[in-house]
Every structure is written in C-alpha cells, then in structure tokens.
C-alpha cells in the first residue's frame, strides 16, 4: 500500500461528490480496494510525455427545428410526472 493510500474519509467525500450514498461496510470495502487500485494507477507516472496532435474538428449541424419526442413518450419512464412535467425533489 502506498503512503498516500486513500482514507475512508476520502471515500466518503468522493461518494458525496458522485451523489452515491454508501453504507459503512461499503466504505470499508471500497477503502481497501481503492488503495490497491490507485497504487496500480500510479504506475502511469512511468509514461513518457507523448506528442498528442489528434486531428480534432468540431462537428456542427445546422440549427434547425426538428421533430422530437412528444411529451407523453418523454414522460413515460418518469416515476412521478405531473401534468406535462417531470417532478423532482426540492433542489435545496
């Protein structure tokens, strides 16, 4: 295990950022596993700098009105629709 192995507090913090609740036993298990996995990821330090000249281009289409899903189809999988809207929890 490397010196800066991940702590259970860090696992909890990341889980909070990722919006995934974890049970205590999940925190313990992930803390152990992450130590091994992150130590392995650290071998990326051995990778030399490589020129990256990827021929990237933006792909744009004309901004034209198109048909889209009707609201019935769009709402069909929502657990709690209201009128023509998705109903979610309070934001704060």
């Amino acid at each position, binding site marked *: 295990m490397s010196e800066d192995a991940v702590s259970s507090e860090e696992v909890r913090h*990341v889980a909070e950022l990722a919006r995934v609740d974890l049970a205590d036993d999940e925190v313990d298990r992930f803390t152990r596993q992450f130590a091994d996995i992150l130590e392995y990821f650290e071998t990326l330090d051995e990778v030399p700098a490589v020129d990256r000249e990827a021929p990237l281009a933006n792909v744009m289409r004309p901004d034209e009105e198109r048909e889209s899903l009707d609201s019935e189809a769009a709402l069909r*999988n929502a657990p709690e629709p209201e009128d023509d809207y998705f109903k979610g929890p309070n934001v704060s």
Partner: protein
Amino acid sequence: MSENIFITEETIDGAADGPLAGQTVAVKDNISTASVRTTCGSAMLEEYVPPYDATVVTRLKEAGATIVGKANMDEFGMGTTNETSYFGSVDNPAAPGHVPGGSSGGSAAAVAAGKADLALGSDTGGSIRCPAAFCGVVGIKPTYGLVSRYGLVAYGNSLEQIGPFANSVEDAASLLEVIAGSDERDATTRADGDETTYADAATGDVDGLSIGIPTELLEGADEGVVETFWDAIGDLEDQGASTHDVSLPSVEHAVEAYYVIAMSEASSNLARFDGVRYGHSGGYDGNWNEAFSAARQEGFGDEVKRRILLGTYALSAGYHDKYYKKAQDARAWVKQDFDEALSDADVLASPTMPVPPFELGESLDDPLQMYLADANTVPVNLADLPAISVPAGETDGLPVGLQLVGPAFDERTLIRAASALE
C-alpha cells in the same frame, strides 16, 4: 432458461426481405429497442422502456432480421465475466460451469447455444472479444467511428463500439455490413466505411499476409492458451502467411490508462441516472442531493459504484493531472506504438484473453485481478483500431480465442485473415 442468456425474450420482426431475412439476432440489453425494456443489466433501469430504436436496431429491422431478445450483460457494460449483472450471471454454453466472459456475455452465449444466429454486443475494453473467446464464437470490435452509437446507453463514449457475434467469420461480417456506416445522429461516426462490403472478404486466403506478434501480449499468459495460440499461428503460416515479432512497450500501461479513462467517462455518463426522468427513484424524501444519492445507492451494483467513485476521484481537483492527464498520454503512446507496428505488418496477432474462462464465482472478490485480465484487449480500444476474436482451439476443453488487430477501417483484412482459421 437455465443459462440465463436473455433478460427479456421478445420477438421483434424486421422487414419481409433484406440481407438478414430469416436470421435471428440477440441484442445486448444496453442497445435501445423502442417499446421493449432495455435494462443495461441494472436494477436502475429494470423498468426502463426506450421510446426509440438505436440506429443499429433500425438497420437490423430494415435488413429483415428478427430480434429474439435482449441479452444479459454486466451491469452498464462494466465487467469481464458477466457476473455483475443484476439479473444473475450467464452459464457458458461452450464450457458449462464457467463464465461466458463480459460484458456482452449473454450475446456471445446466445450464439454459442444456438438461441440466435447472430448477436450484437458493445466493446469498451474488450467486451465483445472476451466473451467471443470464452464462448468459442467470432466477435468483431469495429474501428471507432464505423458503427453508430446512437441509442447505445453510454458508458465510455470515447472507447466503445457496437459490433457483431456469429458462429462464422462470414456471418459476423454480414452483420457488420448491415450496421456499419455513418449516421447523422452520431457525430463521431465517419464515412470511411460507407461503401465497404465485408462478407465477401472472408476468402480464407492469407497467402503473403504479414502478421506481427506483440511479444508483450504473450508474457504472463496461461501456458495452454499460449500453446493453442502458436498452433493457430502455425496453421496460418502453413497457408502462406509470414510472422515476425513486434514490440509494443506502451501496452504495459494500457490497462491502467484504460480504467482511468473509462471510469472517468463513466462517472460523467452515469450522472444522468437520477430517478427523476427515468430509472429507479426509490421514492425518497429530502432535497435533490439526498433523494438522488439514496436512489443511486439502491439502483447501482458494486462494480458500477466502484467505477463511478474511482472516476470521480480521478477527475477531482488535485488528481486530474496525476491520473486522467497521464492516462491520455498513455493513450497517445499506445496509438503511436500500434501505428508503428502496423506499418510493417498487415495485422497483429495475440491470444484474445490471457486466460481460459474463469469458473463461475471464482473471480468476484478482487477487482484489480479482474481488470488485469483485460490486458490484451484494452490497448485496441485506446488506439481506436478494429479487432476480431476468432476461435483458435481449446485448452483443457476450454475455448481459446485468437485476436487479430488491423489498421483503422481495414476490417476487410481482419475478416480475410480470421476466415483462414476456420
């Protein structure tokens, strides 16, 4: 069904006529089918019914194929054994008691068991080639950009491609021919393969073909797998192919680069599952973050949580340069290595998987060991190249696959070479 191949069995009829008329196809359950449940092997999407077809499904229907079901898979495509599916693991029809390989295990098993003539899977780091090898069937991972990903539930967008399974190279090529080609709904598709045919490339003629063998991809592989691989290479040499060793030093870092990139993309892609517009909501009280976090704890399995968390960590302030940026450097290095190796060879050959199929339940506890099993397949996704896995024989009664990798958009050469092993 005892092998647990399908999550949903459903007959979706295609057009009356077409190149795939009379053929049955199993479709991996992360490829959207209008009005037919598409779960991604997850409790999160257990009840999700897409309102539209993926482009590949539209093309299957137009070609006259009959879809016979949605195939079991590792949850959201994350796994090497098909044991992370919420709907249970699949038994390998070619090696009962063993895993079919992941993540498109149900698709490969459907073909191996004769439940479908053909199947579609998706390959982010080997998810078509691994189950093809473990189930003794043919699987093709197309060049990135050849096949539309519209309607594929995204896991690692920059890496994944939809591709075919079949019992023969020619049949896999026929299915590729149907699904390949640019799509205005997916801006990452390219027109390079639009006019290309594939099935007629399965000539079995390898006279004069130059095969490079990356020594790094044989190191550490199971002895029986290596022996079977060399027998198959000998077979190709007898038919007039020549072989030489090549070195790809970058592949030593491909697995860690792949997992950092795939997990980072997963952490972003899977943020859409909030239980509000679709997916499992759990009906929790509290504010958005609280309800959202509780629903995701319930809806996602262990491997998915592991990858979302590690991806979030790799992208977080302070670690971005250490992990994500370095992984992109490694990806560029891998591409460069493959370009050089393929300048002196028509194709590169290796065992598809360094090991024969695991026994069911053997491998679940140690994620890192599992990730290392992907050593021979992930470099190809990092380099955006096409690859095929073709049955090479058996070791101790377990199937072994041979992987061929070619230059971008040169699927025809892979198909030609692979067909010589049948």
